[in-house]
């Protein structure tokens, strides 16, 4: 069981702290399909990253099949980290633009030294997974900017599943995708789930999708131990997050403007 308890996380933003997740608790069983819904800006992505051991929470604890996680990020042990995998919201951002699609899929295995890039086994695995997520072989040799968003998201799914995780967290898997690509990805996940008793947490803002595909659906606004955060709060938080993003953007342009 993947169990998150009383997770809290806030970010430092211009004008004080922004509370992204406030004491949320969530459990995911193996073989379960759990949907997590909520409006944008309600902390779903932050919770997903904490549960995937990528982001250290300010407070709260995470256990994977009884093993307590107390370190996050690069410090976390590979064996533990491979039990939980995350598929990011925007595939364009989640793949290193310098790696070919095939390399990107194999990267976790090579990175954790389960395989060397020269091994013949790589090719076999790569083509097995390409088939499972519905990628044609010629796409594996292309760079990320040469394939479509949907194809890239299939590659991201393959990359997450190739390390044989016990739990899969999909953060808005389909928000940018067409309905048939979304269906294809969900079918691929379902097939693996049937084989390996995979626990799936599907984060989405599509209530219909969550209701039809998942066995259970949780609303992030109801997960908080300490409830009572008002609607105005959420809007405020959204607005200030957007302002921070904007100013980062503007500064980026300003930096580029400087002559060498």
């Amino acid at each position, binding site marked *: 069981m993947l169990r998150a308890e009383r997770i809290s996380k806030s970010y430092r933003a211009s004008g004080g702290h922004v509370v992204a997740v406030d004491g949320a608790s969530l459990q995911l069983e193996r073989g379960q399909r759990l949907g997590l819904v909520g409006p944008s800006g309600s902390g779903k992505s932050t919770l997903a990253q904490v549960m995937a051991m990528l982001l250290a929470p300010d407070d709260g604890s995470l256990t994977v099949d009884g093993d307590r996680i107390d370190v996050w990020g690069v410090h976390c042990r590979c064996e533990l980290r491979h039990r939980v995998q995350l598929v990011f919201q925007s595939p*364009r951002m989640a793949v290193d633009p310098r790696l070919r699609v095939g390399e990107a899929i194999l990267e976790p295995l090579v990175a*954790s030294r389960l395989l060397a890039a020269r091994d013949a086994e790589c090719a076999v695995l790569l083509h097995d997974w390409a088939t499972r997520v519905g990628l044609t*072989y010629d796409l594996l*040799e292309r760079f990320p900017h040469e394939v479509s968003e949907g194809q890239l998201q299939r590659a991201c799914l393959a990359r997450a599943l190739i390390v044989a995780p016990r739990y899969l967290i999909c953060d808005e898997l389909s928000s940018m995708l067409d309905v048939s690509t979304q269906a294809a990805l969900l079918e691929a996940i379902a097939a693996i789930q049937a084989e390996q008793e995979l626990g799936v947490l599907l984060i989405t803002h599509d209530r219909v999708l969550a209701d039809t595909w998942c066995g259970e659906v949780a609303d992030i606004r109801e997960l908080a131990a300490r409830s009572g955060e008002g609607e105005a709060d959420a809007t405020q938080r959204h607005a200030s997050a957007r302002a921070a993003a904007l100013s980062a953007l503007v500064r980026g342009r300003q930096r580029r403007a400087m002559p060498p």
Partner: protein
Amino acid sequence: MSAAGAALRLRGGLTQRLVETARRWPTYMRVAAGVLALLVVAGLLANVVAPLDDTAVDLDHVLEGPTAAHPMGTDEVGRDLLTRVLHGVRISLVIAVLASLAAVAVGALVGVLAGTLGGRADAVLMRMTDVFASQNHFLFGVLLLVLFRPVLGGTGAIMLAIGFTHWPSLARIVRGELLSVRERPFVLAAIGGGASRHRLARRHYLPHLLPAVGLAFVLTVPHAVFHESAYSFLGLGLEPHQASLGNILADGQRSLLAGGWWIALFPGLALLAIAMTIGTIAEYWREHLHPRWRSELEL
């Protein structure tokens, strides 16, 4: 086609990639690269290529305009200007490349330290960088030259003056790139895949930093050429008898009133050619630095 064969084709060799890149160059890039290569070769082989001794005084042919014997004319003591310009190109390029390397090394070191250490060390390093950046680097270079020319000699002092004043912008770029690449989701994804610190640095940070550093180096070279010649021109750099482009231009300034325009024109053209070719190459590189994030199909 076999599965194994497909996997092997995933990686292209460096040479192969370079050749592929050069094949895609537009005409102006080929011209720029050709002219630069010509300048570098002519400069390096100045002793072989140049017809005459660069210090040979010939008082019978003083201040002569361009002729067949002296394609760029002669100076006020009758030295062949073409020979001196070729030597000047060599001296200027060597000094500029070494000085730029020094500047880039300092900048990259400070930037990487600030970016990786973070916290207080980062703050201290960046404030230090700010202080250096808030200097007028030309004037500061003059100060360094005056202080260190007696001990390091003209060449050494110029390298110090350029290396010590051109690193802040690079330190900022390196730190900024490092911080921004660390926040990208694909780095999180790599951590999720189980990449170690070492692998993150080697496989993700370094490939994103190196082109920026390389580009900064290339862009610093023409700048350094400019500084070297400017300092020499002002009489603060190399010894007056050395055939640096700046020194020749200083001769040219003296000869202007006597109508010796060619002494001012040709060394400047050499400077211009160096700066324009390197600038063109750097600009092209900058445009192709980042792989296209967006597909052309998304309209």
